Each structure stands twice: as C-alpha cells, then as structure tokens.
C-alpha cells in the first residue's frame, strides 16, 4: 500500500498548503467517515456555513486508485448551508480514483478569500498543490467550464468543479465531477456543497496524476484475485448484471409506482398516469432506437462493472444528458407532471449546467407549481424558471435556495423537506422505512442515507420500520466510508470478497462487524455535530402534511410514531 496516504490542507485566504499523513492507527479511515471526523473535529457547529470557519473536505476511500469495481467514489463533507447540519454527499467520476493514485486520502479547503471574486483553480499533482487563476471561468455553465479546463490542462486530468449556482452560493448548488469520458456528469449534489466550494473561491480542482505510480497494494496478487472474484459476483448477481446494467436506476420507478410512492404533482399523488412514458423500459427503448451517442449502459467511475449510468440522446442521436436516472425522472418528471423524456432530459441537463442538485430543484419547482407560481406539466415554463437561476434573477435565486425557501416565499405549507432538504423520489407514506430515514438521518431527507425499498417488510405498515431504517443507515455508512457505490452491496454476499480487497490493499484485516461499529461511530459523530449546531429531536420529523394528508394512491399517511423516531438516537 502507499506508504502513508496524506491529508492535504489548502488555505484559501493565504493560498498556502500543507499535508500530513493519515493517522497511522486509522489506516481504513476514508470517504464519509473521514469527512465526518474532520468536520466534527474542526468546524464550529454554530458557524455560518458560507463563512471562513467552515471547511470543505473531499475524501476518497481506502480502495481508491485501484481498478476494483465501484470503489472510487468521492465523498465531500462540510457544514451544509441548506440543512444547517453536517453534510456528506458522494459521487462517482474519476476524481477519487486520481486522488488515490496521488496518495491523497483527503483534501481540505479552509478559510476563504478576502475578495469573493478572487476565483482560483487548484491544480493537484505529484508536484503538490498550485493555485491558478480562475477568474476567466466565472459565469460559465458547467459544460463549457469543463471543456475550457480540459482544453487548458489536457484530457488526462480529472475535474471537480462548480457551476453558476455554486458561484452564487445558492443552497441547491452541488459539486460536479468529470466521468471517465471527461463529461462533467457525476454530482455531489445534495446539501449545498457547491455553495461552500464557491465561498472558498475555488472554481475547480484539477486532479493530475500524470507521473504518479500505480496504486500499491500490500498484497498485489491477492488484490488481483479478489478483484476478479468481485467481478464474478457482480456479473452473476441479477440486480447488478441485468437490471442496473441494462436499465439503470430507472427500473425502480415501476416499484415505487406500484407502492403508490412515486412522487407526483408535488407529492400529492403516488402514481403517475404517464409513468410508462418515462420508466426504465421507455428510457431503454428510446436510447436504443435513437442510437448515435446514446448508451444504455455506462461506467461512471474507473473500473465499474455495474455501469448503471447512461447517455440519453436527442432525436438526432446527439448526447443530450448523461445520466438520466430515476431521481431525475421522478423529481423533474412525475413530480412536475411532465411525462416526456426529452423534456425531462433537457431540464436535467439545465440543472447540471447550472451546477445545481436535480432533486432539490425538482422539489422546489414542484412546490412553486403547487403554489400556482408555475403551471404543472409545463416543461417550457420550468426551463424558463431554471434559466432565471443563471441570470441571478429573483425567481432563480428563490428556486436555487431550495424547496424550503421556495415554500416560504410562496406561502405554501405543502413542502416536502426534512431539515430543509428536499425529499428524493420516494414518497415516505408509501415506503415508510425511507420516511424514517428522511426524518432521522443526519443528512436531511436523503434516500441514500438508508434506503429500505429492498427490505422484506410491509412498506405500508409503520411496524418494524425503525429497525429496518437503522440497519440500512448503518450499512450505507459502511459503504460510504469505504468509498463504495451503494449498489455494490447487492453483489457482496457475505462480504468476504470486500474484506479481502481491503486486506490486500491496506494490509489490515477487518470484519464486517468492525466496519459496522465504525459506521455507528461515524453516525454518532454526525448526530453530535447536528445537536451542537442546534438540530435536535424537533428536526427529526416529517412535515405535517405527510402525517395529515392521505396519499390517495398508497392510501397511507406517515404514521410511524414520533416516539419511535426518537429511538434512532440509540444508533
């Protein structure tokens, strides 16, 4: 293994840098566990999220830099301007892989420039960290900015960048990463982390691993053997080999629809009449029929064999948006009463170009439509409203501030948020375990913090959901902290292959129980940060309308007792 993975620190005011080895007694510390530890230890919980005391921590997992499948996700953590609590959001792309190659476990952006318009690009290479001028990039959309950066630095680098949303410090702004095709398509979307990066005056981080050695392993032969075994598991597991690979995450739409949990018209309904026009089958068939640059399957990070991503082409076969996933189809489609794949893909691309979270903007648009500020089903009106973000116009700034602010401005109480973060494409009345996760997660309403859709439980019953959500939250934290894709979990069986990969890479033997214990510690750190930031039991709940308004398609209200939700603190 690399002698000592480093934690690199960058002061954005003084433009000085430094680095220190990862603590030798915690060789597995990485990704979400590391960003949580850094934020918990170093960020004053009550500080302003866009001020000098917040820090933006980017971290990869202990397997990053290798070509094992689905292990190169980039975690980004900070105090969230959207939730006011701790945030971790992870994404694919090439950034974490290149960090691993460079021997960097985490890069921490500290302080902020005195002049908010002092934009810089960080170039990270074997020679260290260099500040380059980034002023010329200001105002560019993500696609143009990425093209300019690849033109400047060459096509062998990776990129982590912000768009206009991040430059404007909008709370819906995310962080974008380039994928293996150099498309800026992988998003640390949630919680306003793009606004934090913008507050640090950093337009982009260029990961340049040219000249870096191949990622070393403590036992290379064993690692290679375990990689092959993992590939065999992925290729023999129907969920990863068949469903995700050919139909992507969109395949979950038929399931949420059947449960009456597909958000439709701002979470007023749970089934969408035009579902068959935008589900996995429709998406798959449209991509194949149009051909050209369209791809039903696409790896979002180096080495990934699941390949659940896609490239959606326009009518002429030219790439329109990559990827178009379930959350995009749900939040920009059914939630807005839009049943047209091309319209959804255009909205998706627009969000991407603005560098904003498709979920948060989808929820914000739904709230605006519910309030009558925009018409349901009008994709052109939705596009025009999103363009207001680029212009910095008032409606754009309202939507870009997230669903909570949008609801407040328009006097709407039908606002599907928890801790001010918009819900993903699972109505919690129809999948109550996800509702428990939304309510109790340290991250706000985030399905990736503990999705329970796969659990063998009655999703409409309040019974047993706490335990189901708790188990899922712990397993998600395990995978997040290894820098692994959550979808890998389906193919891991008894976890012996993953444990062998970790051992062969790091020299450290561990067990799944030990990894779960570490995940619990991470969750407790996150919870403690939130408590000190002022987020307590009163914030661990769903909005009133979810308890009071029966979703006509699931026939359910959210009826998990609040006293039960309190018990999540015992994690």
């Amino acid at each position, binding site marked *: 293994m690399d002698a000592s993975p480093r934690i690199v620190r960058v002061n954005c005011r003084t433009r000085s840098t430094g680095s220190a080895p990862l603590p030798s007694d915690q060789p597995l510390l990485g990704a979400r566990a590391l960003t949580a530890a850094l934020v918990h230890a170093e960020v004053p919980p009550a500080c302003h999220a866009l001020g000098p005391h917040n820090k933006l921590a980017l971290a990869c997992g202990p397997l990053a830099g290798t070509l094992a499948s689905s292990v190169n996700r980039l975690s980004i953590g900070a105090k969230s301007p959207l939730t006011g609590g701790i945030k971790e959001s992870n994404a694919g792309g090439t950034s974490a892989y290149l960090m691993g190659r460079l021997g960097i476990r985490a890069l921490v952006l500290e302080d902020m420039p005195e002049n908010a318009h002092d934009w810089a690009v960080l170039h990270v290479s074997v020679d260290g960290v260099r500040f380059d001028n980034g002023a010329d990039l200001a105002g560019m959309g993500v696609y143009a900015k990425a093209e300019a950066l690849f033109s400047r630095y060459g096509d062998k680098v990776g990129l982590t960048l912000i768009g206009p949303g991040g430059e404007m410090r909008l709370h819906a702004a995310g962080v974008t990463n380039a994928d293996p095709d150099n498309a800026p398509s992988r998003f640390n979307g949630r919680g306003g982390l793009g606004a934090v990066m913008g507050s640090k005056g950093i337009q982009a981080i260029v990961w340049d691993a040219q000249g870096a050695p191949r990622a070393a392993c403590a036992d290379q032969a064993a690692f290679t053997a375990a990689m092959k075994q993992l590939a065999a598991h992925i290729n023999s597991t129907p969920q990863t080999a068949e469903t995700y690979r050919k139909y992507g995450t969109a395949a979950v739409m*038929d399931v949420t629809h059947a449960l009456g949990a597909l958000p439709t018209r701002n979470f007023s309904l749970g089934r969408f009449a035009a579902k068959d026009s935008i589900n996995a089958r429709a998406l798959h068939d449209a991509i194949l029929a149009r051909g050209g640059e369209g791809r039903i399957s696409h790896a979002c990070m180096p080495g990934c064999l699941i390949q659940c991503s896609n490239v959606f082409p326009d009518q002429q076969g030219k790439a329109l948006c990559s990827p178009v996933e379930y959350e995009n189809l749900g939040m920009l489609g059914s939630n807005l009463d839009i049943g047209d794949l091309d319209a959804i893909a255009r909205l998706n691309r627009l969000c991407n170009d603005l560098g904003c979270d498709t979920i948060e903007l989808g929820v914000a648009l739904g709230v605006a439509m519910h309030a009558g500020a925009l018409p349901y089903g009008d994709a052109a009106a939705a596009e025009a409203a999103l363009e207001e973000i680029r212009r910095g116009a008032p409606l754009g700034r309202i939507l870009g501030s997230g669903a909570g602010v949008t609801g407040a401005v328009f006097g709407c109480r039908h606002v599907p948020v928890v801790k001010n973060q918009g819900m993903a494409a699972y109505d919690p009345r129809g999948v109550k375990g996800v509702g428990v996760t939304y309510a109790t997660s340290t991250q706000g309403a985030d399905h990736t913090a503990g999705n329970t*859709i796969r659990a063998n439980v009655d999703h409409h019953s309040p019974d047993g959901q706490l335990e189901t959500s708790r188990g899922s939250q712990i397993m998600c934290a395990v995978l997040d902290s290894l820098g692994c894709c959550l979808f890998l979990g389906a193919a891991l069986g008894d976890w012996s292959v993953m444990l062998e990969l970790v051992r062969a890479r790091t020299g450290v033997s561990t067990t799944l129980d030990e990894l779960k214990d570490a995940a619990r510690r991470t969750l407790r750190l996150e919870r403690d940060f939130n408590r000190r930031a002022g987020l307590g039991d009163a914030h661990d709940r769903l909005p009133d309308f979810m308890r009071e308004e029966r979703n006509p398609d699931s026939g359910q209200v959210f009826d998990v007792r609040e006293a039960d939700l309190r018990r999540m603190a015992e994690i």
Partner: protein
Amino acid sequence: MTLLCRVNLPWRQTDIDLEVPPGTDKEGLLALLREQVGDAEVFVFFNGKMLLSGQTVPESGEILILPVLSGG
C-alpha cells in the same frame, strides 16, 4: 385457483394465467414462475401490496412481478 400474473420486468413483460395451489407462499409462487422470472430477484405485489417472504398468496386478485433494486 387461477390468478392473473403480470410479469413486468424491464426485460420481460407478459401476462399469464397462473394455476396456484391454495396455501402457496411467496417462495412457492416464485417456483411456479421460474420459467418467466429465471434467477432474477423480484418483488411480488398482490393487489397493490407487497407479498413478503413466507406470506401466503390470497385466493383472489392480481399478481404483479417487479425487479428488486436497492434503490435509485
């Protein structure tokens, strides 16, 4: 009993009239559907409710087969 079974997997969509012996549980039902479903892990819905492992198939209604996913 004969029940309508809608197989709605992205790669296979078909409606079949399935002969289901009374008392059949979810696992038994999937064994009857092996030709249609193969090795795929699937959700079984019965009249809009998810049929769980060990639960018995009711005597009337409609079966819906969907793919299992960890999330999206």
